[in-house]
């Protein structure tokens, strides 16, 4: 790969992306348009996250890539390989050992620490998109802090279902100002956004937007006094490591309704059980 620059992108492009990242950090939750490049992986596979990672990664970084919380899903493997090839940096599956983590759909269970950067892949950055399809309109709504429609939408859920029926990409207000779509992480992960010690960067390649939550920034999930925000929970522990209060994936193990519930965060789960511990019998 000597014919490509470190981390694939040329330095000019990285500089352009870093400028967008800096602006995003300066205005938390605000979507900064950037000149997203065509990447050698498909739109929807994490081109935004890859560009952000490529522009902030350095030779001494230790990179972790997860998809659905797991280090071993095909897309996570593919992106990790991409950076291993184009940068030669060390990679890891350990949340603690990583300095830079690219993720799709999850925030690790292991608490992040200061100095770490979490890069989230974002398909649709605009939180108001399902309420207003036009970009020209939604930009105006952000400028005027006109977020009433989102509260109305949540309220309609409550009148219809008795609760907010939004389970992922649950809208948040960042630093008391910008309405933000926290990428399609489950609302389970929303509390991890609030006052996170790590820098959170969001990259949307196809939609050409970057936004950020700087460390220790307030992030509030929208709710009402009489309907406070709450996260999903499972009335059973992880079948592999016995963890309670972790996000569980459901595996269908036979055709008779047999299920296995296991941590979606593979690193977290593996660390909690002795090496080679097999799954509990069905």
């Amino acid at each position, binding site marked *: 790969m000597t014919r490509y620059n470190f981390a694939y992108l040329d330095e000019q492009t990285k500089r352009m992306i870093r400028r967008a990242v800096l602006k995003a950090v300066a205005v938390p939750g605000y979507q900064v348009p950037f*000149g997203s490049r*065509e990447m050698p992986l498909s*739109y929807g596979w994490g081109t935004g996250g890859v560009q952000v990672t490529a522009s902030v990664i350095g030779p001494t970084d230790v990179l972790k890539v997860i998809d659905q919380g797991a280090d071993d899903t095909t897309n996570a493997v593919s992106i990790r390989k991409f950076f291993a090839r184009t940068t030669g940096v060390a990679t890891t599956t350990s949340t603690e050992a990583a300095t830079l983590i690219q993720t799709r759909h999850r925030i690790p269970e292991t608490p992040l620490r200061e100095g770490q950067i979490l890069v989230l892949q974002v398909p649709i950055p605009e939180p108001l998109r399902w309420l207003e399809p036009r970009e020209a309109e939604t930009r105006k709504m952000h400028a005027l802090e006109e977020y009433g429609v989102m509260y109305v939408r949540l309220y309609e859920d409550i009148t219809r279902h008795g609760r907010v029926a939004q389970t992922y990409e649950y809208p948040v207000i960042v630093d008391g100002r910008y309405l933000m779509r926290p990428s399609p992480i489950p609302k389970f992960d929303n509390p991890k956004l609030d006052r996170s010690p790590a820098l959170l960067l969001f990259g949307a390649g196809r939609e050409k937007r970057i936004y950020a939550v700087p460390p220790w920034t307030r992030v509030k999930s929208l709710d009402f006094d009489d309907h406070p925000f709450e996260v999903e929970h499972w009335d059973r522990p992880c079948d592999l490591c016995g963890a309670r209060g972790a996000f569980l994936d459901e595996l269908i193990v036979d055709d008779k309704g047999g*299920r296995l519930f296991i941590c979606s965060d593979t690193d977290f789960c593996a660390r909690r059980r002795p090496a080679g511990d097999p799954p509990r019998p069905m």
Partner: protein
Amino acid sequence: MYVAVKGGERAIDNAHRLLARERRGDPSVPELSLAQIEQQLALAVDRVMVEGSLHDRALAALAVKQSRGDLIEAIFLLRAYRTTLPRLGVSLPLDTAAMAVHRRVSAIFKDLPGGQILGPTFDYTHRLLDFELADPGGAPASPAEDGRGPQAQTSLPRVMDLLDREGLIESEPPARDDARVGDLTREPLTFPSGRDVRLQNLARGDEGFLLAMGYATQRGYGRNHPFAGEIRHGEVTVSLTPEELGFPVEIATITVTECQMVNQFKGSATSPAQFTRGYGLVFGGAERKAMAMALVDRALRGRELGEEVSSPTQDEEFVLSHSDSIEASGFVQHLKLPHYVDFQSELVLVRDLRAAHGTPRAPVVQ
């Protein structure tokens, strides 16, 4: 059973090997050469160059070969290569009036200076399978009066210029030397957009999408009463003024197809009745695309011309945000990536809602 989510790395490597084998097909059949693709699948190569925004026949042919003939995949390959290239400069506007013309038809005048030149076209072929073509060398090329080569006509006046002389059609805004041309591959699309960026978007846009949009305008969704004023196909020279020289230098000759649509405009309180323009320009012989592009370009000028904007075809956010086959293909296909986590959240919610509704819950078997 837990193995199912493991082994991603090996699966990917194997998938790549399987793909390479499928691409090659039966090894007893001779392998395609790039020259064969470039020469004999020339229109596929043209389409890949247009939508890939890169004029390089050899690379486009390679992309067609590598993608097993999936042209959107080929376009993607070419785009991903193009994005790594430096942008050295901006060419001068093409002078299509000086085109070495191989085909030129106008649907609005029976005859015109320079005449109509049919050129190589499918238009009047009978779509009968030519079984002689099935055997190599079966259908020898018959000698034809060829418009190509030194006989190609140059300096044919453009039909639009003839109309313009009489003031019947809106004038093209004069090119300004200092006008900076937008580039979607460097800066994100913003709304409202300029016509330069719109035309770039349409030129890169998916042929099928533009065809459907253009067709919709003809069927009443943003109707703009089009006439094919002129379609011309041939070679034009590309010139660039290097900063250190200060005068234009010819750097290439490329083949393009240009379509100028003439559209009715009844006039408004402030302007008299006049024909308006829709414009399409593509590499090679992608004539269908050029025509569709011109229809959509005109539809998107509705707001500028004070027309009522009532159809998706006239809505620049709708058209420009969804025209790109690479973006569309990626986002549609990303649905096959794992969504276990979001789906699990939905499962939890739906089970809770069903429980609240009083529906007994099927026991989860361990």
